[in-house]
């Protein structure tokens, strides 16, 4: 098995030549998921897939490589849910009606989306969107078994566990990971019970289907949170409040799929 930190470092070296800098973090890949040359081709591949075409409500992470996809989602008149960076201010909802035609590319930027869209609580998500149709994330690297490693914080695992506990996704909800080809590592990884495995890896050049991906059904693994996360992510507190109010309803009836 491979040390994830070492793999991440190796990938970052290759990534530097195709990456686009962030407005704050420059090329500091430990701080953000970068956009890359060819993200337009990856977006075109993804938007041609049935899991996207049939989706009405799409959750997309605030990764820079997903900017074009977020804009296209609005152009295609789909509802967009996104977490704020680091989940620090919870979830944001952006509806096609919020965005003047022609301004889709700008409305979905991290500096803009919180003003054009609106914050949405977990309870409101449950009310308005009993069912999310598709989850899309980026990542630092992913192996061919669909095991991804993000910035090292496990934000997407938390997002999955939160949405799963709320009952708005289940193990059959498709997850797509968008990466550059240099971010695919051909190495086995230890898979933890809270690792959320994607169904598809989409790159500028290809789509890889992952058979039988593990989708954790245990909710948040509280003991494994990085120190400080519980304090900094108010969404986790919201989730605990929902639990105390008896409003969590994980959908355990979907087809059970475990890692092979």
């Amino acid at each position, binding site marked *: 098995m491979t040390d994830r930190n070492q793999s991440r470092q190796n990938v970052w070296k290759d990534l530097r030549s195709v990456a686009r*800098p*962030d*407005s*704050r*973090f*420059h090329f500091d890949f430990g*701080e*953000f998921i970068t956009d890359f040359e060819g993200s337009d081709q990856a977006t075109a591949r993804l938007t041609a897939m049935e899991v996207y075409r049939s989706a009405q409500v799409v959750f997309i992470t605030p990764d820079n490589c997903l900017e074009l996809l977020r804009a296209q989602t609005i152009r295609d008149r789909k509802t967009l849910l996104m977490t*704020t*960076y*680091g989940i*620090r*201010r919870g979830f944001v909802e952006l509806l096609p009606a919020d965005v*003047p035609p022609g*301004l889709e*590319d*700008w409305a979905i*930027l*991290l*500096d*803009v989306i*919180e003003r054009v869209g609106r914050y949405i609580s977990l309870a409101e998500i449950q009310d308005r969107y009993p069912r999310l149709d598709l989850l899309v994330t980026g990542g630092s690297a992913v192996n061919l078994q669909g095991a991804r490693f993000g910035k090292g914080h496990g934000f997407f695992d938390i997002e999955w566990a939160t949405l799963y506990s709320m009952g708005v996704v289940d193990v059959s909800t498709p997850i797509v990971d968008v990466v550059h080809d240099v971010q695919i590592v051909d190495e086995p990884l230890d898979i933890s019970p809270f690792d959320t495995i994607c169904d598809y890896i989409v790159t500028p050049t290809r789509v890889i289907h992952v058979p039988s991906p593990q989708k954790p059904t245990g909710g948040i693994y509280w003991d494994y949170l990085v120190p400080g996360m519980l304090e900094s992510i108010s969404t986790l507190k919201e989730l605990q409040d929902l639990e105390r109010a008896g409003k969590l309803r994980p959908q355990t009836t979907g087809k059970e799929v475990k890692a092979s």
Partner: protein
Amino acid sequence: MPMDEKERVRQKVWDQLEAVARPDSRFHWDFNRFIPDFEGSLDCADRIRQMTAYQDAGSLLITPDNSLAAFRAGCIRDGKRMIVPTYGLARGFLQLEREDVPPGQEAYAASLDGLDAFGRPYPLARKDRQAGPGPGLLVTGASVLNQDGVRISRGPSFFDLEWLILLSLGLIDEHTPVITVVHDCQLVNLDCAPLPYGIVTDLIVTPTTVITPGSRYPRPSLSAISSLPWQILQDVPILQELAE
């Protein structure tokens, strides 16, 4: 003034600032890492746009502080040429002109993400730069400022560094006017001499008032580069070149 006293004052201001500030898309409420936008920043922008110094300036340097986003949008609408340092000077300076931004998208272009999308590199090497005048006006935000226009800070601000860079390239001189935009709660009554490389503002603009600091401190000379902390020279390669 002792550092821990400065730190105490800064923290006290930040506690008040939180009530009127807006979080950053990345840095949330971590005022150590950014200068926030605040309620009334549009009023500050409107005040500056009425000033002669603004109307006379064809080009402006505007720092990438969130509190200046509304002002940057106004500059684009007014057809000003903007030079904006990238955050942390990581990628030098960007420039933006009216024709770079489609009408109706000025506010987007004025955000840091938008500047990256719409802006073009502003080359510092003389041979790469279109011959043209440097900025006629410098506008910056600040974390905490005293009544004399001195920043209450632990070390050089990025604006201090940018000023030294522009001076060393001959793009500005010691008379180029400097305006600093802060919320009223970021102003403190506290005697504090500027650091050797500290640029003391000519004018303080808040949502409610315009203040001309009474005592004018002289601008630093180029030799101030040598008194910059070693770590800064490591982090900002342009400065290291200038220092040599």
